[in-house]
């Protein structure tokens, strides 16, 4: 079955090769075209508008400094409306019609999985700049967002040490939530803790009275909240008004949807989040980034980790193209394979991992105070996305184009 599919892919690639190959050769002297597919309307717009702005900022900086290897950067932007179908339509459009050299695309994991077969079919190159559940082992994808091992291997032990070993997980009932919960479970067990509860919430649920009681019925020391979307975010307000009073740990809040800015204090009090960037980070690089950003987009509500990732991704791409001397994907991946593609940006120094094509991060522990200001109790430098490589994904050797999870890891060979 697997080989069969590969054969199909090859024949398709051959069919597409004529058109694409000619295009890249011709385009050698024109601008470098970058496709941007992000949700500027619909459910996810709150967190993703800023990604487009970050890419625009990076493009402007690159062009002001003379472009990539002397060629200007040109953005081809489409609004995907938080709709998976639009990703399918527009990924095809940017690769086939606009003939872009690289695509920056996707917020939700579903949208990524929707466009990934198309990127594979046309042998394109896509950057996914989102924090996600991890596990994508695909040579056509470069992931700059943080993954669970980076966020949970830091967060959970610290929380257990600080507050106690009893953990209650509250997760969105879909891939991200379930896989993240799996990671939490595993790390809690490794550190001698105890799961006192685990509850999954369907997307779109906004009423949490029963859940709040379930949590209170246990003697949890802290709650891991892996809730996603505007509806589920209503949990914090409801939990606060019911005086749950337990500290919360999360990989997804604050850094992405800036809930601490949107909700009335103190509903997020004592929430701890591991993130690779938020605008409150108090380093000179971060401050400079925020200043540049606000100069170009004065009304930007919040500069989140996805914005930083997108900005970093643009610069990583520039670096790889300049080193490779070409926008050819194999040449770019050859540079990536050397393992020294790094960038010192707003969130500190980050490097791409050749095996998984994911990115290392400086992980900041952000604590939300009672007035919703942010403190950083600790910082972990240079945390690698180790799991895929350890589990057997090695994109320098072969390309399974699959997504793995701890409970369904790559087949051992």
């Amino acid at each position, binding site marked *: *079955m697997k080989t*069969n*599919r590969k054969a*199909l892919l090859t*024949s*398709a690639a051959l*069919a*597409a090769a004529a*058109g694409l190959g000619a295009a890249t050769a011709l385009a050698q002297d024109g601008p470098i075209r970058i496709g941007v597919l992000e949700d*500027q*309307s*619909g459910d996810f717009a709150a967190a993703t508008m800023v990604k487009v702005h970050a890419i625009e900022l990076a493009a402007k900086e690159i062009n002001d400094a003379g472009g990539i290897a002397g060629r200007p950067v040109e953005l081809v932007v*489409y*609004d995907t*409306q938080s*709709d*998976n*179908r*639009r990703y*399918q*339509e527009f990924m*095809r*459009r940017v690769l*086939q*019609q606009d003939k872009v050299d690289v695509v920056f695309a996707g917020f939700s*994991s*579903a949208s*990524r*999985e*929707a466009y*990934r*077969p*198309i990127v594979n*079919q046309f042998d394109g190159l896509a950057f996914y700049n989102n924090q996600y559940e991890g596990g994508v082992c695909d040579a056509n994808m470069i992931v700059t967002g943080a993954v669970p091992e980076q966020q949970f291997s830091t967060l959970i032990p610290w929380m257990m040490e600080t507050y106690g070993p009893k953990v209650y997980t509250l997760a969105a*009932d*879909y*891939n991200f939530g*379930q*896989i993240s919960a799996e990671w939490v479970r595993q790390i809690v067990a490794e550190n001698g803790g105890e799961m006192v509860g685990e509850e*999954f919430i*369907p*997307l779109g649920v906004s009423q949490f009275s029963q859940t709040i009681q379930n949590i209170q019925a246990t003697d949890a020391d802290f709650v891991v909240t892996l809730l996603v979307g505007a509806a589920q975010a209503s949990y914090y307000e409801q939990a606060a008004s019911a005086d749950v009073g337990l500290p919360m740990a999360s990989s997804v809040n604050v850094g992405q949807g800036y809930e601490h800015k949107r909700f009335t204090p103190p509903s997020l009090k004592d929430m701890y989040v591991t993130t690779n960037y938020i605008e409150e980070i108090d380093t000179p690089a971060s401050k400079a980034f925020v200043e540049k950003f606000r100069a170009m987009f004065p009304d930007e509500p919040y500069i989140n980790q996805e914005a930083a990732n997108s900005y970093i991704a643009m610069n990583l791409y520039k670096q790889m193209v300049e080193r490779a001397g070409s926008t050819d994907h194999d040449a770019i991946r050859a540079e990536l394979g050397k393992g020294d593609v790094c960038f010192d940006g707003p969130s500190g120094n980050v490097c791409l991992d050749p095996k998984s094509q994911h990115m290392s991060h400086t992980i900041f522990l952000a604590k939300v105070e009672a007035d919703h200001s942010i403190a950083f109790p600790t910082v972990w430098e240079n945390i690698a996305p180790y799991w895929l490589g350890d589990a057997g994904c090695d994109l320098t050797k072969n390309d399974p184009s*699959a*997504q793995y*999870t701890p*409970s*369904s890891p790559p087949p051992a060979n």
Partner: protein
Amino acid sequence: MNDARTFAPEAAPRDRRSGLAVWLRRLEGPQTMGRGSLFWLAAGLALLAAAAYPQFSDDYTVGNAAYFLVWTFMAMGLGVVWGYGGALSFGQTAFFGLAGYAYGVLTINVGAAYGFTWLALILSVALGGAFALLIGYFMFFGRIRGVFIGIVTLSVTLVLETFMAQTAGPQWRIGEARLNGFNGMSGMPPLTLPWPGGDLVLYPGAQLYYALLAMVALCYLGLRMLLNAPFGNVLVAIRENPERAEMLGYDVRVYQMLAFGLGGALAGLSGALYTAWGQYITPSSMGLTSAALPIVWVAVGGRRDITATLLGTLLVLTAFQQLTIYGSQYALVAMGALLLFTVLLAPDGVVYTAMERLGRLGRPGRRAGR
């Protein structure tokens, strides 16, 4: 006692024409717009233009056109159920999704060799149709009618969506195929034609376009014949006055159930083709927004006529995509405005009204004697 066969012909000449001729005659008829050589000339030219156009276009545009064709089956199916049968289904996506997943599960497990993808397509469509028959039986034999049909069907599709969204875990697998929850199932092969000298893989592009174009044309003509056949007449009679139809001796429930099953099978065809097209299917394709879209296409195009439904769907799909490309944030606002505009100013549908204005094509019910 007298012979009660009052009006029945005593010795009418038997109809000697072959079945095929009867069916071909039904390409024209009271339930469908368009008749006469002029109409068929126009239709033939349109088909010819559609067939020739890949020669003058690029791969992307042709692939995109193929993508639009994928959806027309679901729209035509809803046209039959809603426009002709009078039952507004809000849940065609349930059958769309079910067939889409079925195609995925079947082809991932069996593969694409020996043209199996086509068998998988047929099986998926049959499954979509069977499920629709079941739901139809449940509704129509349960005397559910009016807006409640919309609510039941919407509930069905939302249940499926909610359930599928949480099947992310590895325990949710059918054979080789992981359902993969909200992120969706991928990795199924596209439609593959066995071909001397190597299988022909129908990726979006000219080949898939031609395959779909042929399917759309066949399906369109087939529906025209069916709608002008006694089945179609009865369906319209039921829409107009179900009580009277029952009093003419028709089992209204059976007709409605069959129409619903047909609509479900066509939605399933779209679903399986969509999955094959993008090698991907998600629960969100059964969600509220997705469920509403076919209604929009059919309403804006015109539900009372299968030609208007087909053309309208293609028109709306194109317009919405262009709006999204060039209208950025304002696309959804424009779509909403388009809907309002249609309902208030052209309640029969934009294409339907335009066709009616065009006049020359003739309209149902205007023939004087035969």
